[in-house]
């Protein structure tokens, strides 16, 4: 996903040359793509860097809850599919880091910001994957929510981000289908499998709704991001769309969405649903999610343990270059 605006500290400053700013705003309003070499307001650059790097970090941290099940996937086919999916996520991380680098921040700087806790990633990955059904639920709900967020971003104003999203979205729809297929198999399986499937839905439903970010009323940067076409639909609009599409899918599985207040509202042509626990959302954003410490420890450890490999690759490259020059 993973495009939730998680920082409220960004200040929009208009200290730019008004003529350049006006021309920029006009191009964006005309749905033109902004490219890396084009002039852009500093706040636009900062907001995008934050959003794209946050998205990249989410892909990378998101490899961990699923990677947790690669060695335990219950059939050869499921193992191959999960490997391919997690490999796609590493690929998404790569394009996104590259897209963010075109805005002038290096991948190392972004990773450093993640490891020191300055940069955020999607709150959803701070929840644990307990059973195989969680792999189904992540594909179905988490990737489903991600698609809902990302489809509009294929038309986002920053060219490299929009183009990365076109490819990412194609792969995400495969991820969502494989997740739902796992859910179908489990929901129609043995009583133990059905229990796992229902339990996974119970645990992942609300965190998935939180993936769309705070309610519009508490999302101060939404208006500016919409104007700059960094965002194309509001958090609440996307969340409603997700609920409307997903509830019938849960019905088809014979599973119960864990929300007493969920009810079809004929007049709005959508579902009414219960209040999200925003206290939980903000605490997970603050890094207090159930496995937030484990996720960050795993990322830092991989990076630190790999330092000698990266140093060796750089030293080898240097030697080769020196030998070539000699």
């Amino acid at each position, binding site marked *: 996903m993973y495009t939730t605006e998680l920082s409220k500290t960004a200040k929009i400053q208009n200290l730019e040359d008004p003529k350049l700013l006006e021309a920029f705003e006009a191009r964006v309003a005309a749905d033109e793509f902004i490219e890396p070499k084009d002039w852009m307001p500093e706040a636009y650059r900062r907001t995008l860097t934050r959003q794209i790097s946050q998205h990249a970090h989410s892909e*990378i941290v998101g*490899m*961990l809850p699923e*990677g947790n099940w*690669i*060695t*335990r*996937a*219950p*059939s*050869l*086919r*499921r*193992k*191959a599919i999960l*490997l*391919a999916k*997690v*490999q796609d996520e*590493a*690929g998404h*991380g*790569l394009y996104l*880091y590259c897209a963010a680098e075109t805005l002038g921040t290096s991948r190392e700087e972004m990773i450093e910001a993640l490891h020191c806790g300055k940069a955020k990633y999607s709150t959803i990955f701070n929840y644990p994957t307990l059973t*195989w059904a969680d792999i189904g639920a992540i594909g179905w709900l988490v990737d489903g929510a991600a698609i809902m967020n990302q489809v509009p971003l294929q038309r986002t104003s920053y060219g490299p981000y929009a183009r990365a999203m076109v490819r990412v979205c194609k792969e995400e729809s495969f991820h969502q289908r494989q997740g739902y297929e*796992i859910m179908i*198999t489990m929901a129609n*399986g*043995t009583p*133990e*499998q059905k229990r796992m499937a229902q339990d996974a839905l119970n645990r992942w439903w609300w965190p998935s709704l939180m993936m769309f970010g705070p309610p519009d009323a508490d999302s101060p940067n939404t208006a500016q991001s919409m104007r700059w076409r960094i965002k194309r639909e509001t958090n609440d609009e996307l969340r409603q769309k997700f609920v409307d599409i997903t509830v019938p899918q849960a019905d088809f599985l014979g599973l119960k969405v864990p929300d007493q207040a969920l009810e079809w509202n004929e007049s709005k042509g959508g579902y009414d649903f219960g209040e999200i626990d925003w206290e939980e959302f903000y605490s997970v954003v603050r890094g207090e999610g159930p496995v937030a410490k484990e996720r960050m420890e*795993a990322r830092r*450890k*991989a*990076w630190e*343990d*790999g*330092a*000698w*490999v*990266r*140093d*060796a*690759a750089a*030293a*080898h490259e240097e*030697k080769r270059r020196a030998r070539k020059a000699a």
Partner: protein
Amino acid sequence: MATASPVDAPPVDARHDYLLRLGDDSLILGQRLGEWCGHAPVLEVDLSLANLSLDLIGQATHLLEEAGAGDGDKLAFHRDVLDFRNCLLVEQPNGDFARTMARHLLFSTWQHMLFQRLARSSDRFLVEFASKAVKEVAYHRELSSEWVIRLGDGTEESAQRMTEGLDWNWRFVPELFEVDETLQALIDRRIAPDPREFEDEYRSAIAAVLAEAKLEGPADQRPILGGRRGHHSEHLGHVLAVMQFLPRTYPDATW
């Protein structure tokens, strides 16, 4: 040398056994590489290790389905250690990245040379299988060679780790060239290549990579054998415990 056989081993159909050997090699190495997911030194390496693992799981699926008359999962998830036929090299723990790459160089160079010849087998299935898989394995060999060279000729620390990685895995190389009665029967029927025919080529190829990596080849060690007869290291039981837990815990479920 005198070797003990597993007690009450079922009667062996040589071709079936050979499919298990090849299939289990790919399965167990694929499983090992899957352990790296999300923990690699850099994102590009995460991508390549997942890619290698995916190729290997694909190979295992073809081979075990052929051996299991369409049901590869039964073989992958419902056999215990004594019935696994992989070589000892592939079940070795990942260790650090140097040890993983040492293992992969030693295995994929062998597998590449084997599959090149297997593509000319008298067995139609094996020809079709190997003709496709040989391309994947050529890439595995290239990738691991590049990393061994990079790490050997990188920093002092990486050279030291690479030396240790090779040293750990070296004692399992002779098993790759072992010919027992089962394999001999298949060599006689031109189903399987004779690995002894490419042992010199293998040793030269490894030596060439190590020379470019500025590493000394490890000293020959006493061979450790047994994988092809189901006599494994202590590690395999743990690999299987993890890999097989779901289908074993819920034997009536389909996934």
